[in-house]
């Protein structure tokens, strides 16, 4: 029936390249009023670039944009706004010290000199009632939760008169309940005749909430379909191509390391220009040149995933007993977490990002104070210990933000390898750095872990993401740690690098280290781990042994469903 209506927006043959990387190739996209249109694809598939072209942040190299039957050139975000195209970015653009109403009016086209607060607030109240976007207009933004802030961003767009609303991974920061109410709101907006584009990489969410789905892969449109005709298999085929689907079967042991070196496609060109296909182009109206956030480790894990049975775990060495902690805003982020990990075991933590994973990993590394409960490693209470003591006890930590936290991008390879051990006898003699030792160790790491660095005296910020992560792992496992916490360790990495990283973790667990593996990708967790705990809203919903559970159960737990049995 939608075919009878003219599309409000058409992108035709859009092509965009950044240097040698083609982000979009001959992309066609039609969006109709009244629909929720999902853009699905892996990271780097070109979703964000396409939307940045639509909102005027990038200029396409080729192709046309037709809006309401007319061909349009969109030179800047201003142009896009004037046409009625608006976007909610993943990182909100709100001013914390202004009120909700002020934030909205910062973006409205109204040019009155004086502020009429009553009128502003009334308008916002009307808008929020119409679409069920509950938020107090007079509240300061810094007082709001993330979900409320997202609503402010949406109100901003509506107030600008947007008719095409684009949301970049809107559910990534929300709890399942919040996400559902957000989609209900989007549905209301679609029903009132607006077109909504949702960028996502979550198949279930898209099938459940969208009207039509367009799948992007490697910058091309791979498939486009009404949501009613979509199923997991078809979408997966679109997203990952003709790769075979992973088999989630822990009972199929493949003890030998797979031919990972062989299939390594090595796009990881040696350092220098390396890193992500970060577009140099400053894009005229500039700001937010976020090149496809390398977030959320894609589903690329699929093929290279090999399983390994490891029932030869040792004794339990790591315990958390009723541990609670707060997030940066002082709100409870972990609620009475209890778990134990055995030596040689890989313990997975599943859950939607932002449900306490970061806080959990930081508590384990000693970076975040424990407000309640105890953390024990090999019988030693570490709940009050300093970071340094944690390091000395043999706790390795791969932080989520590897480049800014795990490494110092401005320092060289050689300088980065001593980050945690610069005070040990090997690198320091009466406070004097032992540069020969640093150098020889750096060379050894580079060789052993196949890290392409382009020069041991170059800043590691110039290395590619995969090599940075390998360096980080090389350093963290160098002291044969007793416990390794890895937070989204393969996010944004290409298949080859991701596989080496998993290989390193497996090897460490074979050597007897307890591993806590935090990931959003269930496939990966099922392939890697012995047991899995599920985090939702700071609570541990339950712990399952991998062979005895399935996606459905874990998925239910991720969405906050309580376990009844076991």
């Amino acid at each position, binding site marked *: 029936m939608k075919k009878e209506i003219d599309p409000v927006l058409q992108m035709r043959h859009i092509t965009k390249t950044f240097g040698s990387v083609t982000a979009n190739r001959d992309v066609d996209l039609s969006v109709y009023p009244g629909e929720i249109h999902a853009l699905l694809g892996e990271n780097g598939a070109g979703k964000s670039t396409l939307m940045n072209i639509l909102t005027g942040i990038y200029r396409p190299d080729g192709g046309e944009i037709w809006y309401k039957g007319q061909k349009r050139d969109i030179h800047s975000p201003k142009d896009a706004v004037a046409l009625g195209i608006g976007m909610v970015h993943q990182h909100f653009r709100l*001013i914390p010290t202004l009120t909700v109403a002020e934030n909205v009016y910062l973006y409205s086209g109204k040019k009155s000199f004086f502020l009429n607060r009553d009128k502003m607030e009334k308008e916002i109240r009307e808008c929020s009632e119409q679409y069920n976007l509950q938020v107090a207009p007079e509240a300061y933004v810094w007082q709001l939760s993330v979900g409320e802030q997202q609503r402010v961003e949406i109100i901003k767009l509506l107030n600008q008169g947007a008719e095409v609303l684009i949301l970049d991974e809107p559910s990534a920061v929300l709890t399942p309940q919040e996400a559902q109410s957000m989609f209900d709101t989007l549905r209301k907006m679609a029903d009132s005749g607006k077109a909504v584009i949702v960028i996502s990489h979550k198949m279930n969410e898209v099938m459940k909430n969208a009207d039509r789905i367009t799948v992007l892969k490697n910058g091309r449109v791979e498939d486009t379909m009404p949501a009613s005709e979509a199923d997991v298999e078809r979408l997966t085929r679109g997203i990952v191509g003709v790769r075979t689907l992973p088999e989630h079967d822990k009972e199929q042991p493949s003890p030998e390391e797979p031919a990972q070196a062989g299939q390594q496609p090595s796009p990881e060109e040696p350092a220098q220009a390396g890193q992500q296909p970060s577009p140099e182009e400053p894009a005229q109206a500039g700001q937010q040149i976020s090149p496809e956030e390398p977030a959320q480790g894609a589903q690329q894990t699929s093929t290279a995933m090999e399983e390994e049975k490891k029932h030869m775990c040792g004794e339990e060495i790591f315990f958390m007993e009723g541990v609670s902690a707060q997030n940066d805003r002082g709100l409870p982020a972990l609620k009475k977490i209890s778990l134990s990990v055995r030596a040689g075991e890989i313990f997975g933590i599943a859950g939607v990002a932002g449900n306490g994973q970061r806080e959990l990993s930081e508590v384990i590394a000693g970076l975040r104070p424990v407000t309640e409960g105890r953390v024990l490693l090999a019988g030693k209470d570490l709940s009050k210990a300093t970071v340094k003591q944690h390091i000395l006890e043999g706790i390795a930590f791969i932080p989520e933000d590897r480049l800014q936290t795990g490494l110092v991008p401005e320092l060289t390879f050689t300088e980065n390898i001593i980050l945690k051990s610069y005070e040990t006898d090997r690198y320091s003699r009466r406070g004097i750095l032992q540069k020969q030792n640093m150098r020889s160790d750096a060379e050894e790491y580079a060789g052993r872990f196949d890290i392409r660095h382009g020069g041991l005296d170059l800043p590691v910020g110039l290395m590619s993401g995969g090599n940075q992560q390998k360096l980080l792992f090389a350093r963290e496992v160098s002291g044969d740690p007793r416990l390794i916490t890895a937070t989204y360790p393969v996010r944004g990495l290409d298949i080859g690098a991701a596989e080496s990283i998993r290989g390193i973790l497996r090897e460490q667990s074979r050597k007897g280290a307890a591993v806590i593996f935090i990931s959003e990708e269930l496939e990966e967790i099922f392939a890697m781990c012995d047991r899995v705990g599920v985090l939702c809203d700071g609570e541990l919903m339950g712990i399952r042994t991998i062979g005895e559970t399935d996606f459905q159960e874990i998925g239910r737990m991720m969405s906050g469903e309580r376990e009844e049995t076991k």
Partner: protein
Amino acid sequence: MSTTLLISIISTAVVYAATVLYAAVGEIFSQRAGIMNLGLEGIMLMGAVSGYMVAVYRQNLVLAMLVVILVGAALGLVFSFLTVTMQADQTVSGMAMLTFGTGLSGFLGKGVSGVNANLAFEPIAIPGLSRIPILGPSLFNQNILVYLIYVIIPLSMIYLYKTRPGMILRALGENPAALDSAGYNVFALRYAYVTFGSIMTAVSGAVVSLAYTNFWSDGMTSGKGWIAVALVVFSAWNPLTATFGALLFGAISIIGIDVQTVFPQVPSQVFSALPYVATIIALIFTTGNFRGRRSAAPAALTIPYDREKR
């Protein structure tokens, strides 16, 4: 306390406040825009000397103020060029501005140093209002530059909190990237507010040389530029609070002189230093990172805006 003493205290405090408030309000706007100008003392001196030179050589106060405004604007543009366009370190740029202004003003002012201009902004009694007991003679028998600040303070408060451009200014020092994405020209806005701040600072200097002390000597503002910076912080970036702060600082300095006659054992330097002590305490309380408190300082203060850095 006798009435005349009270009048003299209030009236001196008011004049003193005027000498620093122009600069303080200007700097509040500049810092709200995200640029910290620590060269106020230098700019003030330039304003003081240029105004005084015109007064001596041309005997024209209107022309003098015009020149002061031009000098302030020129220095403001230089400072914005350094900190906004060149993204230079604001502390270092401020020091450069401080040294430059101090040096150039001394160099240029050599000719008028100690020369009497025989021309200054004289007090004008406002009919009616000046008859009010105590407040009349102390508040409404002042020169025009003082009256002007009576108007500027409420106007600046209205501008900041009740108008759209004021709202944009408050956002500018917090999250320039967000403003940029909303289509505002962050660079132009910062240029405008830094230049405005510099003009106000130059006027502050002219208040000193043409309405307060009525002479020029090298380095004559003697730290008033720093007091203005202190006021900005002391007031938590609010012009009205800055006004009370300026009156307080002015009162302290005048009371200090009186107290000295009664208690000669208390050194005058104690009173001179009090504003700075008060500012340090205020700074710690308004911007200190205590549990659950937000710093009053603009979040993007001293951070150059670089589009390529997201």
